[in-house]
């Protein structure tokens, strides 16, 4: 789960990480009063949960109230990668002398927490990593949730220029790690971490991503989610215990298991079709889940045919068959469906479907060939 910069900055502050003073505004009046409180110049930063807002013109520096009145509505009118700008973070503008990149994340290849830092901050860090990997420093924690002070001291020496900035940097790392572990983050990033003209170190940006699997123990964090940035269908699917990703094609897919679902999309493509979605109905599937899955798929008007591909393990094929019948009763099935069922209770399922005059395939290839042909006709 992602949160906005202003929300992340709030959490940084709580954990003792120095941030710029600022508040979020949705109206010009709010923005003016925040700016007066902080004092001009201020930076107006569009709050969108997608990257590249700077390049899209979503960040503006204003020196006066008049400039603010002009710039604020311009930002509010922006649409960044398909998302309208609703909230604007008004923060104090500072004279930056030097910028750093600082982050904590999990490196799955090493099963470990890793601190990442670079003295080349403020820019695209992935580019830096590609072009000059030596500019990126990493410190692995050996699966500990605290940093050994001696190792940290050596680490910050390689990044920050002098004793005061090394001390401040080390403290920021300690606090960022505390935040990372206590809030179950998957990424906590400061880019840039700035040193201003008076030598103070401050987080000039704030980014936190949370581990979705750990949200059950952070009710307060769950509340920070901005649902406007979530796909409505994906949200509905998630609530029903399904995993759904919308794609561009016209073959709707209902599959059990993530691996088989991915492979099914691949086979649809290889046999000349184009999948409309990824959908995993999950393990112990109930008829209700199949009904919800088909409901979501039918909402997409581009979809011309539907493939149900099930390999029963914990999933019982008869549950799937009953779900399909229920869907036919409750939903308007405007497009043809191809059903492939194998595994647990396969015979029972085929019987149920045969009675309802729905034919089934035994092989995945046969089913995909049929569903692709139907999408072409439709």
């Amino acid at each position, binding site marked *: 789960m992602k949160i906005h910069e202003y929300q992340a900055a709030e959490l940084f502050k709580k954990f003792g990480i120095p941030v710029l003073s600022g508040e979020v505004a949705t109206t010009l009046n709010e923005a003016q009063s925040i700016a007066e409180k902080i004092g001009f110049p201020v930076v107006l930063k569009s709050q969108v949960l997608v990257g590249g807002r700077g390049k899209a013109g979503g960040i503006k520096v204003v020196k006066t109230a008049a400039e603010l009145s002009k710039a604020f509505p311009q930002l509010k009118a922006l649409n960044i990668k398909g998302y309208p700008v609703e909230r604007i973070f008004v923060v104090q503008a500072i004279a930056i002398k030097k910028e750093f990149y600082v982050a904590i994340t999990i490196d799955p290849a090493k099963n470990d927490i890793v601190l990442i830092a670079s003295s080349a901050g403020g820019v695209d860090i992935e580019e830096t990593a590609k072009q000059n990997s030596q500019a990126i420093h990493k410190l692995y924690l050996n699966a500990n949730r605290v940093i050994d002070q001696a190792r940290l001291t050596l680490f910050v020496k390689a990044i920050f220029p002098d004793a005061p900035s090394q001390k401040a940097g080390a403290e920021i790392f300690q606090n960022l790690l505390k935040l990372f572990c206590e809030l179950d983050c998957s990424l906590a990033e400061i880019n840039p971490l700035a040193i201003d003209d008076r030598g103070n170190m401050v987080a000039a940006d704030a980014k936190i991503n949370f581990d979705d699997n750990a949200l059950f123990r952070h009710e307060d964090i769950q509340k920070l989610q901005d649902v406007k940035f979530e796909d409505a269908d994906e949200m509905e699917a998630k609530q029903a215990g399904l995993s759904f990703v919308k794609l561009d094609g016209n073959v709707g897919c209902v599959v059990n298991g*993530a*691996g088989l679902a991915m492979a099914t999309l*691949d086979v649809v493509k290889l046999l000349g079709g184009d999948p409309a979605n990824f959908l995993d109905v999950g393990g112990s599937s109930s008829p209700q889940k199949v009904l919800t899955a088909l409901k979501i798929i039918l909402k997409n008007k581009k979809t011309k045919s539907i493939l149900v591909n099930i390999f029963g*393990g914990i999933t019982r094929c008869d549950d799937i068959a009953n779900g399909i019948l229920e869907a036919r009763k409750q939903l308007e099935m405007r497009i043809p469906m191809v059903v492939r069922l194998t595994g647990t209770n396969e015979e029972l399922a085929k019987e149920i479907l045969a009675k309802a005059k729905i034919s089934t395939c035994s092989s995945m290839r046969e089913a995909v060939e049929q569903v692709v042909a139907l999408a072409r006709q439709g």
Partner: protein
Amino acid sequence: MSILIDKNTRLIVQGITGRDGSFHTQKMAEYGTKVVGGVTPGKGGQDVAGIPVFNSVAEAKDKTQANTAVIYVPAKFAKDAILEDIKAGIELIICITEGIPVLDMVDVQKELVKSRSRLLGPNCPGLISPGKSKVGIMPGHIHKSGPIGVVSRSGTLTYEVVYNLTLKNIGQSTCVGLGGDPIIGTRFIDALELFVKDPETQGIVMVGEIGGEDEQIAAQYIKREVKKPVVGFIAGRSAPKGKRMGHAGAIISSGDSTAEAKIEVLRQAGVTVVDFPDEIPAAFSKKLK
């Protein structure tokens, strides 16, 4: 022979009194797995289908000489369940549970590296040595004993692959599901090493997917060490960048984590990578001759 589990496997089931735990305990016992006990704190003294339930892993191990544990407990208790196994000295721990917080798994790894236990999973279907022992949730009847080792990051896709092998009369030595999470106890390279050492295994199927770089690491190992034929399949060629495809670990975050990149390095390592799961048996028929 087979790897990791066989007729000598003595299994305890953590979460045996739960819905999934009790259902699969019966399925495993029916298959012939020696399920010697179960663990549910506070329910010691009860039994599930005649299998005794204990309050702790230590007690269960002591009373039953179990060497393997399978975990069906909910995600929020899974970390403690794994740690309890490690502490009790269980040799092989299979964690089926999906949705465990990543930091919990980092904590588990810290204890795991200091121990002699091996962890399979989490978020995995388990493993089966056909005709000998089944630990997990896969349908037993689609398997057939034989010379091919199967290792995969997926559940149902593994069944699809195994089903196609069995249809063509190609049996399996052991089928191992590694799990779909970013942090897992056993990775491709570990399973490949075991298959290389197993004299019964004559060929290996490797089923990978987008995300991470385990397939790349495996490819280097295959190039160096594996003389047995390897056939591969990589799922997720049509997956968009930056979207999590069901599995927590299945996400394209960099150029290296795409299906194309993985297919390319595996082919360079001499692996026959097929486009369709049903092409795997034919690829073997050629290689094994």
